[in-house]
């Protein structure tokens, strides 16, 4: 089965076309590569923490006596701290794994929610037009007019700390991106004849919106989505680093970087360095997927 002709858009494959989806993937090894890396990162973040040598939430599992040990050193009970320990004596490997989990959960959940909200708003604006469109899109412009870090900072100052509140703040600053992209691609789809044909066949407005326009304009949104996962993770790390994000009891990557910040100049580089590397990796892979996905979905 060859890939579709260049004239037509790549259809979003469904169960019936699973074979074709596989064929598409086979023809694009770099997309597979990036997807596997992304899947691996998700797996590491979501599964490995339970296998971590230490539970950083459990105060009894670590000892202050082990604090600030360099990478590779052993504790009194014989366990090796491959990436060293932090000022409280926590194993950096475990802390990074747990931190990645928090970062991933925040990134994925907030992106999913922001995407759903943004897609609905953008679609509504495009289909209804007129006053509805003007009001919604001016709201989007208003939100995008502020730097996202500023909006998130203000929101978290009002709401207080907490994983759920960080997610909420990220949704608030991100949905507008999706709304804007969804609206513009929905507007292009609206002009196409199949939408006209659908109206001529007496389909209801909701059906036309969600079954005809939305699946056809989703490819741009999906690409933005992967990039936004990365930016959500960065934003969470930034907020935590600044001390308004997740509570100190949670080993978020941003918090770990912040906690090692004071020790950087005294030579204990590993507390900031390794969580930083993990963060870079976490941000890099979704970006990579987004980039490959864009190339695959772009008919040109």
């Amino acid at each position, binding site marked *: 089965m060859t890939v579709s002709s260049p004239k037509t858009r790549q259809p979003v494959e469904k169960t019936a076309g699973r074979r074709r989806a596989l064929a598409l993937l086979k023809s694009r090894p770099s997309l597979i590569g990036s997807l596997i890396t992304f899947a691996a990162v998700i797996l590491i973040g979501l599964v490995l923490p339970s296998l971590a040598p230490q539970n950083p939430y459990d105060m009894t599992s670590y000892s202050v006596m082990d604090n600030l040990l360099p990478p590779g050193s052993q504790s009194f009970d014989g366990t090796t701290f491959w990436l060293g320990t932090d000022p409280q004596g926590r194993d950096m490997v475990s802390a990074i794994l747990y931190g990645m989990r928090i970062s991933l959960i925040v990134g994925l959940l907030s992106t999913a929610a922001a995407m759903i909200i943004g897609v609905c708003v953008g679609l509504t604006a495009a289909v209804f037009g007129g006053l509805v469109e003007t009001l919604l899109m001016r709201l989007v412009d208003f939100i995008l007019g502020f730097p996202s870090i500023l909006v998130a900072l203000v929101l978290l100052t009002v709401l207080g700390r907490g994983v759920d509140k960080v997610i909420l703040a990220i949704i608030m600053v991100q949905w507008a991106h999706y709304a804007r992209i969804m609206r513009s691609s929905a507007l292009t789809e609206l002009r196409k004849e199949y939408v006209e044909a*659908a109206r001529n066949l007496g389909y209801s407005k909701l059906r036309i919106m969600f079954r005809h326009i939305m699946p056809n304009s989703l490819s741009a949104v999906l690409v933005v989505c992967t990039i936004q996962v990365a930016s959500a993770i960065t934003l969470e790390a930034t907020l935590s680093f600044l001390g308004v994000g997740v509570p100190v009891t949670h080993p978020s990557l941003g918090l770990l970087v912040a906690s090692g910040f004071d020790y950087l100049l005294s030579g204990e580089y590993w507390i900031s360095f390794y969580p930083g590397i993990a963060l870079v990796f976490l941000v890099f892979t979704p970006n990579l997927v987004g980039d490959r996905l864009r190339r695959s979905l772009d008919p040109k």
Partner: protein
Amino acid sequence: MTRQTSKSKPVLEIENLCTVFHAEDGAWPAINGLSLTLQAGEVLGLVGESGSGKSVAGFSVMGLIDHPGEIVSGSVRLKGRDLREMSEEELRRIRGSEMAMIFQDPLTTLNPVLTIGEQMAETIFEHRSDISKATINDRCVELLRKVGITSPAARLEQYPHELSGGMRQRIAIAIALLNNPDLIIADEPTTALDVTIQGQIIAEMQALQAESGTALIWITHDLAVVSELADRVAVMYAGDIVEQGTTDEILDDPRHPYTIGLLASVPGDAIPGEPLHQISGMAPSLAARPAGCSFHPRCERASDLCREKDPAPTSDGNGRMWRCHHPVQASPATDGEAER
């Protein structure tokens, strides 16, 4: 100008329809007092140049004129019910069940992300939700077979991009016929296809139309297509019908100079080596419709009367109509102000 000798009740009656497009400098008329009657089972060829308002007329009937367009006056009655007085929801129920439309470009009229089967099933389901999946499937297969598609059951699983243009247009026709509509408006459905496919589709359309008894408005600029298919022909110019009659009458005995120009422009009659006939000038834009008869700037027969007064329709009382101060007199039977 309704056909006086009508026995059956007409399917579609358009009376004095005006559709305008609003622009910054006022409302531009795209359809200018159009009147038309279509009997059950009749095939009408709606002919005209680009910009003459053929498609807008089609969309006005379907009630799908969007802002900045607006239907400002007139009535459109489908089987006696005025479509312009219906709510949007009532209209939606009628679209796709009692009247349907077929579009010009088969490559874009089908949704690229849904299978043929899904799109067909949807059309039935949106109008009759009480039907079982098996019945819907049978109906889809039956119609695909009717429009001449081989192995229809397998096609239902395919996506539009896997099919050729001709096949897609057949599917679009099948979708339009799914709910047995009383009226189908076909907006240049064969223009984008190559000639052999065009011939096949016209032949199939003819057979289907004869079988189902659906009234058909075939919008086209191609008089050759019309001569094969239509019972009657209406010639449109600048938003109005300038001449109407049976296909034979229009082709053999045209009265309006514009119809004559159109007929002379068909390349099939040209002598090799001779320049092709063309009607000089351009169809007037919406913004600058000339006063008087809208065709006068391009008309060889135009007089001062044409520049001042829009000609009223002349009817021979038998469904034949033309709008011209100086109609071409081929047969002496009719009245008219022959001044030449």
